[in-house]
């Protein structure tokens, strides 16, 4: 492919912090100065982080900088959202298709209690596996998820600041909010918002939840989802996810995304498309569905004059499980078009019942 059009735009990367000189790694180059180059700035400018809400990147060692290191990029987001008062959670310990399934979003979006959280969620989409051969498609990838309830009036500004924090300068880059209405038939959820574009590339989803698990959101929560690999490719100027520099090191110390995940993509693609045990999965679906209903039924506290539920979270785990098992079956091609709708409907019924239980728990209700 021609690089003529982009190489001339690529300024020589300067040694900005005087601590680490990155070698040119042959195939990879920065297409553009994503980060405003500091002018011989080696002195930390701000001691007080509150005085400079935007991450002082020029203080970071090169291998931690968001445009050189996948992990550095994630840490920059974590730090930014921590500064906005979010609790920084760790990924949920179950397989799921998107960060929205995490109970910290699905369930916490319900009920009147304020909630602000951010986390990375490994996301599995068995059908998207391509044996590691497609440059942009994976069956396992990371989403960065931010949820703020109620949605703050300056959520768009916060989002734009988060882009600045990872080095996307809005005076150089064309950032746009393009209509995208979000709907999850499996979660019984919908919201309005946008895809956020940076120079024509969709880098995030921005949604004001209106309904989740069949329950009206009151108040409405704002949700941001960053596709981490795609954004990192953009920041690092690489065309293939597998080529991402994971740890920001160079030479012998460098670990790429492919070093970490290529084998997994190959193995899981084989599993998802050719070998997953459909018979067992069909059973698992039914087991999860039944368990979910059983836990929901058992969770209602009796003898109290106020309706109360005591096991919404374990029940919801089974709903997550059913959803993932369905995705596996779907990838395996053993679910027909008409059955597909009915499976989605069954998962939605579980999600709705869990939502109904949740709003009768301590964290989900008014008082």
């Amino acid at each position: 492919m021609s690089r003529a059009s982009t190489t001339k735009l690529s300024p020589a990367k300067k040694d900005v912090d005087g601590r680490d000189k990155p070698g040119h790694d042959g195939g990879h180059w920065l297409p553009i100065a994503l980060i405003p180059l500091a002018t011989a700035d080696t002195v930390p400018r701000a001691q007080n982080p509150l005085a400079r809400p935007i991450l002082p990147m020029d203080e970071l060692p090169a291998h931690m900088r968001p445009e050189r290191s996948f992990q550095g990029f994630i840490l920059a987001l974590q730090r930014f959202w921590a500064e906005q008062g979010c609790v920084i959670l760790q990924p949920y310990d179950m397989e799921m298709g998107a960060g929205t399934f995490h109970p910290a979003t699905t369930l916490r979006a319900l009920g009147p209690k304020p909630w602000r959280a951010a986390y990375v969620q490994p996301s599995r989409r068995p059908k998207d596996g391509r044996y590691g051969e497609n440059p942009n498609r994976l069956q396992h990838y990371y989403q960065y998820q931010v949820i703020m309830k109620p949605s703050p009036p300056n959520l768009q500004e916060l989002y734009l600041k988060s882009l600045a924090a990872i080095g996307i300068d809005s005076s150089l880059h064309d950032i746009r909010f393009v209509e995208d209405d979000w709907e999850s038939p499996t979660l019984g959820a919908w919201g309005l918002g946008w895809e956020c574009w940076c120079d024509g590339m969709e880098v995030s989803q921005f949604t004001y939840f209106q309904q989740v698990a069949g329950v009206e959101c009151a108040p409405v929560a704002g949700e941001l989802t960053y596709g981490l690999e795609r954004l990192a490719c953009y920041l690092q100027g690489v065309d293939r996810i597998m080529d991402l520099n994971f740890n920001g090191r160079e030479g012998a110390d460098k670990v790429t995304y492919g070093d970490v995940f290529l084998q997994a993509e190959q193995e899981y693609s084989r599993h998802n498309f050719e070998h997953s045990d459909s018979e067992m999965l069909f059973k698992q679906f039914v087991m999860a569905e039944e368990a979910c209903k059983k836990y929901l039924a058992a969770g209602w506290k009796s003898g109290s004059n106020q309706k109360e539920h005591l096991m919404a979270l374990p029940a919801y785990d089974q709903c997550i499980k059913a959803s993932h098992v369905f995705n596996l079956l779907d990838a395996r091609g053993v679910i027909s078009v008409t059955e597909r709708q009915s499976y989605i409907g069954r998962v939605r019924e579980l999600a709705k019942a869990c939502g109904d239980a949740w709003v009768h728990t301590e964290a989900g209700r008014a008082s």
Partner: protein
Amino acid sequence: MPDLLLELFSEEIPARMQAKAADDLRRMVTDKLVAEGLVYEGAKAFVTPRRLALTVHGIPARQPDLKTERKGPKIGAPDAAVQGFLKATGLNSLDEAKIQRDPKGDFYIALLEKPGRAAIDVIAEILPVIVRTFPWPKSMRWGERSAKSGALTWVRPLHSIIATFGPETEDPEVVKFSIDGIDAGQTTFGHRFLAPAAISVRRFEDYEAKLKAAKVVLDPQARKDIILADAKQLAFAQGYELLEDQVLLDEVSGLVEWPVVLMGSFDQEFLSIPGEVIRATIRNNQKCFVVSAPKTGKLTNKFILTANIEATDGGKAIIAGNERVIRARLSDAKFFYESDLKTKLEERLPKFENIVFHEKLGTQGERIKRIERLAAEIAPLVGADVEKTKRAAHLAKADLLTEVVGEFPELQGLMGKYYALAQGEDASVAAASEEHYKPQGPADRVPTDRLSVAVALADKLDTLVGFWAIDEKPTGSKDPYALRRAALGVIRLIVENTIRLPILKAAKSAILGLPEKGAKYPAADAQKLPGDLLSFFADRLKVQLRDQGARHDLVDAVFALGGQDDLLMVVRRVEALGKFLDTDDGKNLLAGTKRASNILSIEEKKDKRSFDGAPDVSLYKLDEEKALAKAIDQVKSEAGAAVAKEDFAAAMSAMAKLRPAVDAFFDKVKVNDDEPNVRENRLKLLNEIRAATRAVADFSKIEG
């Protein structure tokens, strides 16, 4: 007179909703003003991604005073009635009332004067209601207030409102109102990135100018003009031509407040993909324009994007970013295209067995087989090779399962053509993939290749008969399966290609193709359905003729003859009839025939019988009768012969000969003769006029 300035400043409004929203805002506000007696001079609405704005000028400062009279009790009425009257009207005593006399006596009349209110107060009441009831296609709640019921909803979070009112010469006042915590004021904000600071404005001129200084082009048309002119200029400067695209231009202008047009390029190697695929990729996914070489009209490896900022590096980073995305997108498209080419179209067909076309009408696979069968039957009627037609119908839908069409559904058919050509199919067979979907609407081209015509007719007839059979006919404005379009398509295919296709027979045959030969569906009655469908065609034909400005009442006159299921002949008859009725002979003959018909129907009613059968020559008493009888005989045979030859113009000329005899007959002959047998004979003669004209149409169904 004072002007109103209104701005509703929000987060990004979807591009596709903007134009209608501006229109709705103008309509709702001005309708309300007029309803309140505030007749304005002019109004214009504007919209950008972040704001809806309206200026209304020349509004009176006050509503006109309203004078009304209210009738009270009679003089001397009981006190309770008087007190009630005083209370209702607000009069202090009867001294303030007028007395009016009417036939029933003297009554008290209260003259009520309702002083007009200040316009600004009226507007302050109108605007919150309009904001609360604004008809967005979808609206939402947000923020803390969304927890409460009755929270404001808007298309996206609404941040501020400007509402000022006042005459040109003075500083306008803020219209004071508040909606769900947002107070109307006179502050707005400039471009999100280029000039985000707050701006204080007074009136429209000031507002528009200050926005422009703050990098916001308020008028969507102005943004479109800028984008189009700059895009053309950029393309021209490099020796290319912009591929204009109004729909894309509308959308793009709704995504920016400060359009900055830039040109990028992609690798030449992608030009090996069909141009339509490149265009769909760049247009649908990236909202960019493509450019072509002026001589060949072929796409070049350039694209034009519209950014929303003046970047500090002149746009280099933006171009580079867009190029990266477009490169990735085109790589995908190229991969899809090339992998599609690896599978032959017919190898895709088994998969259609698992794809439901319609719950009640079976799978796509079954439908393809039905179309194949029907197309083969139609082929000889349109002069198409039967085997080739079968092949074309067999492959016509196969591209629906290709990757490229999966990605860009609007390329269905076209991709089938490319793939068919690539696998060495006959050119006409390949073309039918694309052309059998045509015509898509009244303005779309009608295919002429006989193969395409046969498959197109079969496709549309199968659709029509299928949905008729399951009773899913269009109703009112609802036509989810585009059946009206399909019927119009059939009409145009037949008429523009001069095809003789008996619709009733074709419909019966299509029923036999349905699952279980149509027996499954009560509505698929082979006797009834084709007739119903035929009258649907008649309606479509009328609509089409009306849209073309032609007489459409003649369609009924022709269909009333019965058995008219050859649409080409129907149209020919209608055309000839239309021309004939434009002449004096035609008009007079129509009048004469109508007169004959009217007399007949009156007498038929009176006698409770019809006057069929040949008149008795021996009963003719007058020359005019004999002349008419002779003329009828002559016209019948001449017109009959002409109709047999399908020469409707000649049939009409023959018919014209009837006119002098008819005129003379009515002039001199009294139909209702005193002798019953003469009367009967004359009525039979009148019936013969009607019968003679029925060679072309039922004249009684013609208007006028």
